[in-house]
């Protein structure tokens, strides 16, 4: 459905997109995951033909995207990172205005009502954007972007600075839109969100796609199968050395009485380690074992934490 | 001095804007100055104008009037065709037009005073003298007629008589032939320039500085409100003095020695310094109210143009109506302008003139202080509501 090939965008000396490749299929919720400044928004703006780019091709619905591809734009809904609504118009009028830019017929009224319900703005129809709280404002911003029921919806960090309640509403709404048949591109630097809703994910950093796949596929790509954390007092260097030699253990750290072990997936990892500690008469407190998260994936692929 | 330093940083960042406004208004000042030397509005000697008389009457009286006017002006031949006349007036080939209607003499002799339609070039003031001459001629003819002269005799008397010229002495007290020196005329416009530059520039700086998050942060900081105001005013003062210094370079550059040698120079400087203080105070007040970038120019224009007009910055104070002149007493620029006239027209001051000069200074200082205080009250209220 969307095909991006070898996209290069430079701002002077800075390379924002470095031969970026993406393929998004119909019906997906596609997550673009990357830290701030990794090129997510730039990629979106190039995709929408807002930005000039130096190299590469963008096709949407099988056709090249250009500034006057008005027939393509009709089927795209966009929710920008910055709230873009008119301060002088009420919630209802804003939604109606943006709907009118896409839809000309009588269906408009119904669509507007649906969008208001969708965003949970029924009680705020007559209010001006300036009076809305941050979360409500974001919801209005989203409503304006999706009101015309487009085939493709692009959401650029729609949940930045949003309270948890609004965030849940937004996320479930996005899944609902997807169920109704829209393909969705979702950019974020919150892993939990991406993990929660996206059917496929691309990890981006320095303008490059580092990995693409479902959450499971991504997790399988990395060595970490399990992370074990143990509160243990007074571990000495010999024991630590012994633990390092354990099968499947490939990373160990011991800080402030907390031992963190990362292991590739295998059975009975935890049991073997606990037995070892008991043999050595080392007392330990709480013990956690966790399956790998996207954070681990990210950490391993990019060598840095996702959160800044 | 964090507030002060913050203010100066933002000022530096807005320097291109400041430079732009300075260029705009200095250009206006210089051009206005050049135009004023052309302007004959207050000269005794009416110059000879290019005028036209359309004589549809062709009577003794109408011809007499033409001849009489020809004594003072260049009479231009023109066809009695509105389009041609308009064209010539538009391009200043004709500056004044009298149209004498067909039965003018008959009506006039019958004792009906039908006024003569005259058309002047809009915006030029010299036509007024021709009005006077037409009046003089026609009134004199009437008097002589009722005095028993025939029309022919009367006309002859008027067109051929030499006419006594009045003996007028100029007691020149300024050393500039009864006019203000050129730099004093420049100082007359200076308030508009100073007011405009400071209001525009400081409004933009204040807008940037007053963005609500910055202000809230300041409110939470350990710097007291009084300290903040003080530092802010200090920032204003730095900008104001810079602009004041720059503007006072103008007369020096344009008129050099004659300006520097004027013994009144310190007074001129001080007078314009007080205008700068008032400009600052007004800019501060506007900065409190104008919270949107797109409204700055409308508000600033009303204040600057409005005050400049009513206080005789553009138009000589003599020309302003009586009522508006009274009202202008309640504006600081009025006192600046009357001081400026005092300086421009008098090479030496008597004691009472010194008194009125100092009164003018004092009142300007009071105005500046009053405006500052009003602004501070508003600032205080605003802080309370927005914090």
């Amino acid at each position, binding site marked *: 459905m969307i095909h991006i090939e070898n996209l290069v965008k430079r701002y002077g000396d800075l390379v924002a997109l470095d031969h970026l490749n993406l393929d998004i299929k119909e019906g997906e919720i596609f997550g673009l995951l990357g830290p701030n400044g990794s090129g997510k928004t730039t990629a979106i703006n190039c995709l929408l033909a807002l930005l000039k780019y130096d190299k590469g091709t963008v096709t949407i619905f099988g056709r090249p995207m250009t500034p006057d591809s008005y027939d393509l734009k009709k089927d795209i809904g966009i929710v920008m990172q910055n709230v873009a609504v008119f301060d002088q118009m009420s919630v209802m009028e804003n939604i109606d205005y943006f709907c009118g830019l896409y839809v000309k017929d009588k269906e408009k009224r119904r669509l507007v009502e649906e969008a208001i319900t969708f965003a949970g703005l029924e009680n705020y129809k007559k209010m001006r954007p300036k009076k809305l709280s941050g979360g409500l404002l974001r919801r209005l911003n989203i409503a304006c972007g999706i009101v015309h029921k487009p085939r493709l919806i692009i959401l650029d960090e729609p949940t930045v600075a949003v309270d948890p309640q609004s965030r849940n509403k937004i996320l479930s709404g996005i899944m609902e839109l997807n169920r109704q048949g829209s393909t969705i591109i979702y950019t974020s630097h919150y892993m939990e969100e991406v993990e929660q809703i996206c059917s496929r994910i691309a990890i981006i950093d320095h303008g490059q796609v580092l990995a693409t796949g479902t959450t499971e596929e991504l997790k399988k790509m990395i060595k970490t199968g399990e992370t074990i954390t143990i509160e243990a007092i007074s571990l000495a260097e010999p024991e630590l050395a012994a633990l390092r030699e354990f099968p499947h253990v490939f990373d160990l750290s011991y800080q402030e009485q907390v031992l963190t072990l990362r292991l590739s997936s295998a059975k009975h990892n935890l049991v073997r380690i606990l037995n070892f500690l008991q043999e050595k008469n080392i007392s330990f407190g709480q013990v956690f074992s966790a399956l790998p998260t996207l954070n681990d994936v990210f950490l391993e692929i990019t060598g840095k934490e996702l959160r800044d | 001095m964090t507030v002060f330093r913050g203010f100066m940083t933002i000022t530096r960042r807005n320097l291109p804007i400041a430079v732009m406004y300075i260029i705009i208004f200095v250009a206006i000042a210089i051009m206005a100055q050049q135009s004023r030397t052309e*302007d004959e509005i207050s000269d*005794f000697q009416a110059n000879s104008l290019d005028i036209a008389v359309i004589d549809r009457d062709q009577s003794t009286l109408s011809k007499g009037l033409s001849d009489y006017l020809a004594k003072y002006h260049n009479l231009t031949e023109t066809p009695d065709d509105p389009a041609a006349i308009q064209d010539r007036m538009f391009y*200043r080939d004709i500056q004044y037009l009298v149209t004498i209607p067909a039965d003018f003499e008959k009506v006039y002799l019958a004792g009906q005073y039908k006024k003569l339609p005259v058309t002047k070039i809009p915006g030029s*003031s010299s036509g007024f003298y021709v009005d006077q001459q037409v009046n003089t001629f026609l009134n004199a003819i009437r008097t002589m007629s009722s005095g028993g002269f025939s029309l022919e005799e009367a006309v002859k008397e008027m067109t051929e008589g030499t006419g006594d010229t009045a003996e007028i002495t100029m007691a020149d007290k300024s050393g500039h032939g009864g*006019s203000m020196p050129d730099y004093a005329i420049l100082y007359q416009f200076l308030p508009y320039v100073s007011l405009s530059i400071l209001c525009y520039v400081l409004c933009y700086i204040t807008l940037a500085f007053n963005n609500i998050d910055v202000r809230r942060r300041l409110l939470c900081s350990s710097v007291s409100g009084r300290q903040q105001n003080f530092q802010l005013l200090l920032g204003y003062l730095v900008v104001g003095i810079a602009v004041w210094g720059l503007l006072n370079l103008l007369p020096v550059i344009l008129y050099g020695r004659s300006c520097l040698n004027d013994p009144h120079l310190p007074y001129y400087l001080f007078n314009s310094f007080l205008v700068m203080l008032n400009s600052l105070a007004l800019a501060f007040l506007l900065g409190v109210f104008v919270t949107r970038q797109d409204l700055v120019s409308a508000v600033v224009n009303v204040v600057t143009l409005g005050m400049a007009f009513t206080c005789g910055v553009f138009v000589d104070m003599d*020309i302003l109506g009586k009522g508006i002149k009274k009202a202008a007493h309640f504006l600081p620029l009025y006192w600046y302008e009357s001081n400026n006239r005092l300086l421009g027209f008098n090479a030496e001051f008597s004691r009472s003139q010194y008194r009125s000069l100092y009164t003018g200074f004092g009142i300007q200082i009071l105005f500046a202080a009053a405006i500052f205080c009003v602004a501070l009250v508003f600032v205080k209220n605003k802080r309370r509501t927005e914090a």
Partner: protein
Amino acid sequence: MLHLFKYRFIQVTRDYANIFWTLLFPIILGTLFYFSFGSSGLAGSGETPWDMVRVAVIEEDGTSVQAQAFRTFLNEMDGDAIEITDITSEGKALRALKEEQILGIYYVKDTPSLTVSKNGIQETILTSLLETYLQNASIIEKIAINHPENLEAALSSMEDYQEMTQDTSLGGKTLDPNVHYFFALIAYACLSGAFLGLQSSNDSQANLSPLGARRSVTPTNKLVLILIDFITLFIVHLICILILNLYIAKVLGISLGDRPGVLLLVNLMGCMIGVSLGIVLGCIARFSINIKTGFVVALTLFPSFLAGLMFGNMKHIIELYCPVINRINPAAVLSDAFYCISVYNDSQLLIRSLLTLAAMSLLFIIAAFYRIRRERYDSI
């Protein structure tokens, strides 16, 4: 389409502060003009309720008939045009003159004379008083010699001084002598539409505002969006300008000519050039909105200054020395167009002015379209 108009209209008109100032600032200035001199005409036209000019009268030699006649004449004028102070010694009078307690000294003698200390309107009044006296004296003298029997009649006729001129447009209507200030003001107000235009083009460009970006990705053709913006602002601005016209003509009572249709047309072109100027300035990329506002101030205030907004005779001077500026300065062309309606009554000049304005507006709009059409941006 209607939908887009409707919302654009709502959006502009609900910005009360903006509309308020757009409408109000020329009205306030117009009112100040009116009170400064509009109501009374320039002082020189003799219609102003003047302060009397304070003078001193020094009798150098009051014995001759001529001197006595002059003294009588002055006494008659006392309380009318002049106010005679009780200063009688020359020394005191000169000092008073210097301190501007009086503005002139009349010397009563065989040939009366006048001393003033500067050039000014009031001094001109004193001078013309003296000249009138001399003229009349010589007339009376002649009558006394040739027709002494009619002296009485002549004197009474002389007292009945008549203003014999009437400022008139070529079309035959009477004219306010300061009408050019109001023309320049309307021209300035028209150009100020540029502020509206600037804001609008700022809103519609992706690289300038989020809203611009938002609107750039919709299937509605961008040219349509711009055109709608332009037309909406143009209509709103036109309404403001028409209210200003009404205010000047009906409330202040300053005649703007008697051809409302043509007046409307001129206003129309004025609004067009104002708004389109703003739009094209807004499209010049790379400058911040504050810098662009500065450009708009420069390009509205400066032309208006050259067209005589601040100094009434500025346009006249330019016409004498560099007429080409008056041909291309939109404010000057606009005020020419107003003159054509009310002063010159000339359709040829009017048509040329209107065509100039139309051509300039068209140029601006095309330039703006061309800039905005370039829809991909280097950076956002």
